[in-house]
């Protein structure tokens, strides 16, 4: 039987439709119809699921940070950890372009990003530095770090001249 859409290629896919007779289509026409339907779909996850399903994924590719695999990403449309964005970058960039029509961020950045991380992260980072300083017997640096950690854990009250 010939495909009922292109009438050229042999029909291999039996596609049920909401009203009327089911249709016989070739693989290429069925994929094109599915893409059109997904593009018109109003369910927020339909387009994403469709696009992810369409990716050619090496199932054994895994994130070194959390072990999440590309196959799990395809099944759930979700990633395992923030590092997955780096691990699956080559898969994700084309997907992001199709989902968002952009591939780089505009807009807010964390206020304390970069040189001034959040308080919890600062404490963790200073503690690690303190351990290193003690191990290296750099007691002057260790004393300064200890003071810094103390201030972070229990900041002194702002004085009357504080901005």
């Amino acid at each position, binding site marked *: 039987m010939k495909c009922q859409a292109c009438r050229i290629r042999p029909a291999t896919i039996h596609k049920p439709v909401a009203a009327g007779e089911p249709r016989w289509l070739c693989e290429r026409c069925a994929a094109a119809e599915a893409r059109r339907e997904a593009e018109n779909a*109003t369910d*927020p996850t339909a387009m994403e699921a469709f696009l992810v399903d369409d990716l050619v994924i090496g199932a054994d590719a895994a994130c070194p940070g959390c072990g999440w695999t590309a196959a799990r990403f395809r099944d759930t449309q*979700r990633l395992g950890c923030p590092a997955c964005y780096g691990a699956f970058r080559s898969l994700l960039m084309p997907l992001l372009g199709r989902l968002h029509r952009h591939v780089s961020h505009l*807009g807010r950045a964390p206020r304390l990003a970069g040189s001034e991380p*959040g308080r919890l992260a600062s404490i963790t980072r200073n503690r690690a530095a303190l351990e290193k300083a003690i191990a290296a017997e750099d007691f002057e640096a260790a004393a300064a770090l200890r003071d810094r950690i103390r201030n972070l854990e229990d900041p002194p009250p702002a004085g009357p001249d504080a901005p």
Partner: protein
Amino acid sequence: MSFFVTAGQRLPAWARGGGEHGDIVLGTRACLRRNVTEEPFPGNASPRDRRRLAADLVLLVGARPAFAEGWSVTLSAATEAELRCLREKHLLGPRAAVDEGRVLMLAPDLELTVQIQQEDHLHLHAWRPGLDPAATLAAVLDLDEQLEQDITPAYSENLGYLTARPGHVGTGLTMSALMHLPGLVYSGEIDKVLNALGQLQYAVTGLYGTGSTVRGALFVVSNLVTLGREEEEIAADFRTNIEKLVTYEMMAREQLEQRDAANLADLAWRSLAVLRHARLVSSQEAWDRLSNVRLGVDRGTLPPLAPALLNRAMIGCRTGHLELGAGAPLDADRRAAARASFLRELFAE
């Protein structure tokens, strides 16, 4: 005190009524998705790890002034009726995970809520009645800024805030409008409008029910693009598109009125009579009647009724609220009787 002791009386902020275009846009929600750096996303964390991080996040959110007098609901400890109640108020999504280590935090006025450990570690929500993208965006960004003093978010300079779904990466911002669109539904124009919104990268779902089972002509319209646009631009674009939708709905209502005024008036009065007098009301009938009455009030066919009353009826006549009120599970017949009784009392002349 548990949130559920007084839950029946508490209207979510979006349902208070009023606000810009309040007759068509019931409410607006801004949602920011955030994750803590160097932690697996909740879908990849063990229940134990979820509980551990949830405990820290509950403390951090609870320390914000807005949540000082609020509630924290551990979803795995909530009963089926309580979970239904949260979904009926639209404070919890229909597919929200409710197993271990998932928490919902609610500010006393319900203008701010935080879902902890759903798809992402934090979903910050701000709610207002009517169309109000600016206020909801400001509220949610303010909360985010407060939390960033203590949390280092998963962020990349290139891709912005990193989320469990690539569909939310970048700003992590989704603006949603909860809309009543009976004019477009009755005139058969709704599919055309929804398809056009799809082309604009907007998603439309039922407020209750999805696909062909959208109930009471109630829809949620949300932006899909979160990457490559600034937060304010997303909010401004959202306002423009929702205002267009409001205009289409008003035109559809006017055309219906011109074509079929007598039938519309009859439908509105007949529906009000059912709400005031019927002894058994099914869930589907309640949706339809309440939608007809709301349209009748908006068009001036019926005497004025406070929008908050209609919202209270819409939320309160659902299974979770009825069962919480009765203090026990109810079968379909008892629910129909309890629903009719609740509606009669609310709409009594």
